[in-house]
């Protein structure tokens, strides 16, 4: 059973990043906060699944409850993602972020598809509603081997879930815009590479913006959607000087997933389908 599900790899890699981050990047990350994030995510997931199952019996199958009734994997991924990205002074902030992240999956959905990336929703909630949360965009630095590690592990997952297009559209659009800006301003190209080689940006592009459950189902939809996020990220970062630009951009575009799904119909992604089904779906989409 272990490592059958792609999400098991995701859990493995995110844990690895967390360990690497704490071990080699001396983050101000407290182990008890990771525990709080995991515990809150799992608890919220359990409670809401039970409530939902009680209330929604007879409404037809709900695919994300099928594989494991409690869907521990998804909650764990959210918890790890939050631990990697979000920093706070008090554990209550982490708990709030974790609880709202999971709750968003249950309450903010259309046609049984949640449209916010849970981790992203949790981060935005904490940034908006608490005064002690922050994100450290510079925490990974720009060492090449991190880029390679992220690209390798992320690529492996994307390969299996077939969401390369999203990352490619996001990174492609973003790097193009940055290149144009860099050229226009007249900076040397090492400035450009420095801006793109940020570990946090790669982590976002490979692991967050690609969550297959909350992004548009159709390829063309995903490409346009990801490129739009890149444009907004670019504008927020360079003209509004927001260090957390990517998270806001994703947050703003998440609800548009619904529109993309209406206009570009395609089968919904499910974690339980095996690889061949996913591939055949993709073929059908094209």
């Amino acid at each position, binding site marked *: 059973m272990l490592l059958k599900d792609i999400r098991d790899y995701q859990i493995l890699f995110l844990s690895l990043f967390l360990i690497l981050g704490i071990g080699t990047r001396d983050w*101000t990350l407290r182990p008890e906060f990771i525990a709080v994030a995991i515990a809150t995510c799992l608890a919220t997931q359990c409670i809401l699944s039970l409530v939902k199952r009680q209330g929604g019996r007879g409404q037809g199958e709900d695919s994300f409850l099928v594989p494991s009734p409690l869907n521990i994997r998804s909650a764990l991924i959210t918890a790890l993602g939050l631990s990697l990205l979000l920093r706070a*002074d008090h554990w209550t902030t982490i708990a709030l972020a974790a609880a709202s992240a999971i709750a968003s999956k249950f309450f903010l959905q259309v046609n049984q598809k949640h449209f916010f990336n849970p981790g992203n929703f949790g981060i935005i909630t904490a940034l908006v509603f608490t005064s*002690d949360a*922050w994100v*450290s965009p510079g925490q990974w*630095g720009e060492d090449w081997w991190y880029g390679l590690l992220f690209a390798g592990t992320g690529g492996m997952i994307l390969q299996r879930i077939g969401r390369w297009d999203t990352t490619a559209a996001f990174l492609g659009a973003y790097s193009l815009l940055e290149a144009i800006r860099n050229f*226009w301003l007249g900076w040397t190209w090492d*400035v450009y590479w420095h*801006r793109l080689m940020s570990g946090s940006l790669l982590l976002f592009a490979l692991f967050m913006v690609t969550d297959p459950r909350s992004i548009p189902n159709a390829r063309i939809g995903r490409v346009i959607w990801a490129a739009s996020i890149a444009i907004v990220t670019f504008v927020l970062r360079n003209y509004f*000087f927001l260090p957390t630009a990517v998270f806001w951009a994703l947050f703003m575009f998440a609800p548009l997933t619904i529109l993309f799904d209406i206009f570009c119909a395609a089968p919904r992604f499910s974690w339980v389908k095996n690889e061949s089904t996913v591939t055949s779906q993709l073929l059908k989409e094209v």
Partner: protein
Amino acid sequence: MQIFRFIMPLLSVLISVLCFAPTAWAFCGFYVAKADTKLYNKASQVVIARDSDRTVLTMANDYQGEVKDFAMVVPVPTVIKKEQVRVADPKIIERLDAFSAPRLVEYFDEDPCNTYNQRGGDRFLALPSAQLNEAESPRRDRSLGVTVEAQFNVGEYDIVVLSAKESGGLETWLNRNGYKIPRGAKQLLKPYIRSSMKFFVAKVNLNKFAQSGYEFLRPLQISYQSPKFMLPIRLGMINATTEQDLIVYVLSPKGQAEITNYRTVKVPSNLNIPTFIKEEFGDFYKSTFETAYTKEGKRVAFLEYAWDMSNCDPCAAEPLTPEELKQAGVFWLDSDSPSEPISPRFRRPFPTSNVFISRLHVRYTRDKFPEDLMFQDTSNRESFQGRYILQHPFTGEVKCQAGKEYKRSLPRRFEQEAQTLAKLTNWNIQDIRRKMRLTVGNITNSWWERLFSWLGM
């Protein structure tokens, strides 16, 4: 000090940043000498007091050449008017430096036979601020052209604020007006001009300077409102071939500041080191910093201190008074409740105030720091200090059993300290051991002879 509010038009979305840099203070501008004097700079020091998008920036002037030759060009995000500029008291930066500098603490072992009190009184020594490198000086060129947005005089400085449409024009203007521009500046001015930045040009008014009676140039302090929280370092690197040091004191009502486009790493801290370091703490810290800097690939910024400004433990200097904080640019003290007055005494049981200081030490070179520094203030109120510990052994006679064990344990402790020191500073361990022998050697003979036999020497 006054709070300067400056309302920027919405257009400011396109206006870039705050960049300030005097060059001699090499960080974000460049010196333009009017003569061929060699200009040297030690570490540049900048104080940034910032609450939301309001910023008060103080640049220490450590210019050491002839006063008449001093001039600087600094890109700024908005037009700066006379009310937005003042001359600050140079002591303020010294105070901030002393308050936040890495420190040495000293403990004395008690008589081990005296069991009721194991821990000796501690003392600490503040360390003279670690001082740094020298950077290079600019060169020359000549030509003309540009819009003078404002022209005024503040203290001993004559200030001109310029806007330019293209770098050639700016270069021309500066040259025509007798400023020498470093070669290569034109290309670097372009990105700032394209980001709609203005240029703050200051030189010394010799009459005013003579009247002021000051021996040195005082820091310039500028207030403005801009969403961009950054320091331009690129201009200061035009001709620099060596590493440059920049110390940024960020004062914020929230918490720690960090750099968003480079890693911010804490300096090694809370380590026990041999007692002879007391005599050479400056060298020790320089080597420690250099070693850490090299180990991190020369591409990170270091956090040397992060603390609520109402207290310290141990205090390298007394906390700044509210008056001094205002001098340093803290403008939000009045509006908030007069909160806790800052204690004039050293060890008050940790009150908190709404000024949090972060001391960031950036040693940069052109190849590892291609992009200007971008900052953010976070809500992280965790305290941190660069602190090194000297633990003096008990030197009296010991008669009890515990005392003998204590003496026996010392060689191992000294060796540990020697190794820590070697690791931190990359100094030769044999030299360290030799020096330790000199300092602790004349205490007693019995145990340290064993130390060296134990070390195989």
